[in-house]
């Protein structure tokens, strides 16, 4: 169905002037044509220039960027030299952009219907009287239920997934010939993401639009795109059809990237791709990937390889592409899980409930108790010494809240947290003994937030060392260096500021700071979700190494199920602050019993062109407060009946510590599953 070339980027280089006054390129000699009816995925890690390229395709350069050479043609005309009044007509009308965070791109004080009408009026392709019908039609097209109701709502009344759908409807309003999608599902929950991608791939198949899908997520790309372009350090390094690029790519970087992705079906740790891409202007005369390449030879350093066409179709920027196949794309690495038995229980959460409801001044004066259903309720988890327990769930599942309660940053409303042999752990940090504080350490999601930007690495590491061990002078410095070496950084990092480090290095410093306290329990809150995949693999490997060395216990919170699978011994699935299922990782992943676990695992995207997520749960917005009875009943595809709405589900024991909270009898839960989540190449598609 592909037609003529609509978007044609020719030898495009874009750069900015650095502090030294030199022109630093962020895109280098990009040649890329996108045909009508074709969906091209652009993948790359942060800083690879993929978003810059997508924006250049609609003639937009971010502030400070300049064109060094080349053209960006749309329908034969160069957008980068076009006067702005003409550009305005093309943008929206012929090329539409769907941005990452659409909640922010919708106007908060206009109803959805009014915003869509505005978009229709702007493009002026319809008579005024046809607008209302077209609005409803657009909302139907993006599969929003009750389009009339949605049209009369404000953006904040919609869930993240619904907002993204409205943004897609806005983009479709001008009936564009090309759609640019910049990470359209990043930041959405797994089940929502699967729904949106389903919609997008449907648009891609049915229309003859040229689509460009920019993402760091190979799983999302695999779902939507027929052709994939891999970018590295501002260059296209590989271009080919999706199946080849995702299964047997001819470029060492793409192979390394594939190996570094944790996968649901593989319980071992992913293989890290060491090093980092060269900063703009620092690529040297040779291949930009040469420093991280496993098969590089000396000629690779001397001359930059060109983008060569391949016999089997596609293009690759590598001299040694025939030999690239020696680099494994799948790992048969060591399994992270130590398996088997663990020590005594270290932490026991019994019937834990946490509430964020705060007494207002009026309530205090009137002596009223805070109202409302607790955010986290009825959570019973026992954590044994030396094990890694994963907490998974979508946003709002209370997983981070539980961590904060264990760390003493939010007090439980009821229930208790028992620690080691000392009995109940005091609720807040202020009441805890120094020894307890030292033994429980927390690592945060985003190292940009968790490291003080004004402190050097030395000052950051000094904090726990001075506080807990009273070290100073040479002893302090020696210990700091030893800790940095444990996280595979060197002494020369001591004088640097966090802003001078890469994302992965910063997270290593944050890990070093936690391990400086010699903790027994480390709470990891989404520690890899702000990192690129190749860096993530290295951090996971580091965390695994550290816990083997010091037999530390981890509570590992993540929304990425594959990451949890790679590291955890046991996993607890949470929904709206209530426990759904808990059990050994292998059991839960190979045989998910709770309907929510089932929905969650089947919605996970695998970087595999054959894999297709199964959409079981509706992507409706969950209401607050959580439902009475079973928290998942509103979205459940296996709802039993009224009992789900009235009664708290019983605990059903599937053996070997595998507990499911559901009304469905245990025999039925373990046998009659809608899908088997793993090892099943052809999955039924449930709408």
């Amino acid at each position, binding site marked *: 169905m592909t037609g003529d070339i609509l978007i044609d980027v020719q030898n495009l280089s874009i750069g900015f002037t650095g502090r030294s006054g030199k022109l630093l390129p962020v895109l280098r000699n990009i040649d890329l044509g996108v045909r009508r009816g074709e969906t091209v995925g652009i993948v790359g890690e942060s800083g690879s220039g993929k978003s810059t390229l997508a924006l250049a395709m609609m003639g937009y350069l971010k502030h400070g960027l300049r064109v060094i050479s080349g053209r960006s043609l749309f329908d034969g005309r160069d957008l980068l030299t076009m006067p702005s009044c003409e550009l305005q007509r093309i943008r929206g009308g012929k090329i539409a952009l769907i941005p990452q965070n659409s909640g922010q791109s919708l106007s908060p004080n206009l109803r959805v219907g009014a915003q869509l009408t505005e978009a229709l009026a702007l493009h002026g392709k319809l008579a005024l009287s046809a607008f209302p019908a077209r609005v409803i039609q657009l909302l139907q097209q993006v599969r929003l239920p009750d389009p009339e109701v949605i049209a009369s709502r404000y953006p904040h009344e919609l869930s993240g997934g619904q907002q993204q759908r409205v943004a897609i409807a806005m983009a479709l309003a001008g009936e564009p010939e090309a759609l640019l999608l910049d990470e359209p599902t990043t930041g959405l929950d797994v089940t929502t993401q699967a729904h949106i991608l389903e919609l997008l791939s449907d648009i891609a198949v049915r229309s003859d639009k040229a689509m460009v899908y920019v993402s760091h997520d190979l799983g999302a790309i695999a779902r939507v795109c027929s052709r994939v372009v891999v970018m590295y350090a501002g260059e296209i390094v590989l271009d080919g059809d999706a199946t080849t690029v995702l299964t047997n790519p001819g470029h060492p970087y793409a192979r390394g990237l594939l190996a570094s992705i944790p996968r649901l079906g593989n319980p071992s740790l992913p293989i890290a791709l060491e090093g980092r891409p060269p900063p703009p202007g620092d690529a040297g005369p040779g291949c930009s990937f040469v420093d991280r390449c496993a098969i590089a030879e000396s000629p690779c350093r001397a001359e930059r390889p060109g983008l060569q066409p391949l016999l089997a179709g596609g293009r690759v920027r590598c001299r040694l592409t025939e030999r690239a196949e020696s680099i494994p794309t799948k790992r048969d690495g060591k399994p992270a899980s130590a398996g088997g038995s663990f020590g005594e229980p270290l932490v026991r959460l019994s019937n834990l409930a946490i509430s964020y409801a705060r007494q207002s*001044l009026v309530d205090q004066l009137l002596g009223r108790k805070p109202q409302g259903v607790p955010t986290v309720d009825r959570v019973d988890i026992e954590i044994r010494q030396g094990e890694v327990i994963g907490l998974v769930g979508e946003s709002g599942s209370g997983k981070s809240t539980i961590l904060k309660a264990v*760390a*003493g*940053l939010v007090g439980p409303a009821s229930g208790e947290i028992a620690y080691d042999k000392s009995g109940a752990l005091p609720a807040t*940090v202020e009441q*805890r003994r*120094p020894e307890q*504080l*030292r033994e429980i*350490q*927390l690592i*945060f*999601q*985003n190292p940009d*937030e*968790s*490291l*003080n*930007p*004004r*402190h050097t690495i030395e*000052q950051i590491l*000094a*904090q*726990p060392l*001075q*506080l*807990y061990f*009273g070290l*100073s002078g040479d002893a302090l410095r020696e210990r700091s260096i030893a800790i940095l070496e444990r996280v595979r950084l060197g002494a020369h990092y001591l004088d640097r500021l966090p802003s001078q480090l890469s994302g992965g290095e910063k997270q290593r410093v944050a890990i070093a*700071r936690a391990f400086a*306290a010699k903790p027994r329990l480390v709470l990891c809150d989404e520690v890899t979700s702000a990192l690129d995949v190749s860096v993530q693999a290295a951090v996971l490997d580091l965390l695994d190494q550290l816990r083997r060395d010091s037999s530390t216990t981890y509570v590992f919170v993540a929304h990425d199920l594959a990451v949890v699978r790679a590291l955890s011994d046991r996993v607890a699935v949470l929904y709206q602050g209530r426990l759904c299922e808990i059990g050994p990782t292998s059991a839960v992943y190979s045989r998910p019993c709770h309907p929510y676990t089932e929905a969650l695992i089947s919605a996970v995207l695998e970087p595999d062109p054959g894999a297709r997520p199964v959409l079981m749960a509706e992507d409706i917005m969950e209401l607050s407060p959580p439902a009475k009875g079973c928290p998942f009943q509103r979205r459940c595809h296996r709802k039993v009946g009224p009992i789900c709405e009235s009664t708290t589900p019983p605990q059903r024991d599937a053996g070997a510590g595998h507990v499911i909270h559901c009304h469905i009898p245990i025999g039925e839960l373990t046998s009659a599953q809608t899908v088997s989540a793993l090892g099943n190449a052809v999955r039924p598609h449930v709408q």
Partner: protein
Amino acid sequence: MSDGPATLAAITARPSRILSVIREVLSRPSGFIGLFLIIAHVVLALFSPFFAPFDFKAMNANAILLPPDATHWLGTDQLGRDILTRTIMGGRQAILVTAIATPLAVAWGGLLGIYLGLVGGRLDDILMRVVDAFLALPWILKMLLMIVTFGTGVGVLIPTLAFFYGIPVIRIARAATQNIVARDFVLAARARGHSRGSIMRRELFGNVLDALMVEGAMRWSWMLLAFTSLSFLGFGVSPPTPDWGLMIADSRNFMAIAPWPAFAPVIALSSLIIGINLTADALAKALGIDRAQAAVH
């Protein structure tokens, strides 16, 4: 205390950072002109006895309200005193008093604001309402009340100005602190079990300092205006000491026949205030602070 050196280093920041901020300020036209004006005024105030061509007290009955000429470059006033001399020396008191009161105001307002931003809760609720109440009163009323009670003079003016001009600083410091307190590195420090004092010193101070520096520059220009206004009303510097506010007040009566005695102090005062504002602008840009968010009190 064992954390002495690290804390000191955190507070003073890196000299390279200070240098780079100064370089950044100077690289902007507004910063360059602003700093030039401030330095020129400070140098004139410090060394004015060397620059002044006449004795500031010397009256001359034969040269009353002379227009500018070769001997008296800016003319003379109603008592025959040289206006250039009096303008050069007229800023000494104003600059001295405000240059001491500004750091005092920023220090006490900043510390209290950081503390309130960190602890929050009931104390914060109550004290911020008190701050609101103070800000609701016109400043001139508050100042006159203090002066009437304690008398005029540098010893009263400095603490009075420092007190009243520290109150808006509380707001700024508290708001800046609340932005920082919500960030994970403060949460991390709390989870480790650091004391409040330690969190204030190590985590908050360095991060709030930028906002306080810009706020301090703003407070300085407001304070200069206040001081001059007080002199103008006769509650500041007493004659015959030359002072801009006083000079404007004295020449007011002769504006119709001799406007020049009022011009010189007005231009001197406004050039200093413009200089301070330009510098504050450039400083805010160099530090990446949005001046549009700053309070206008």
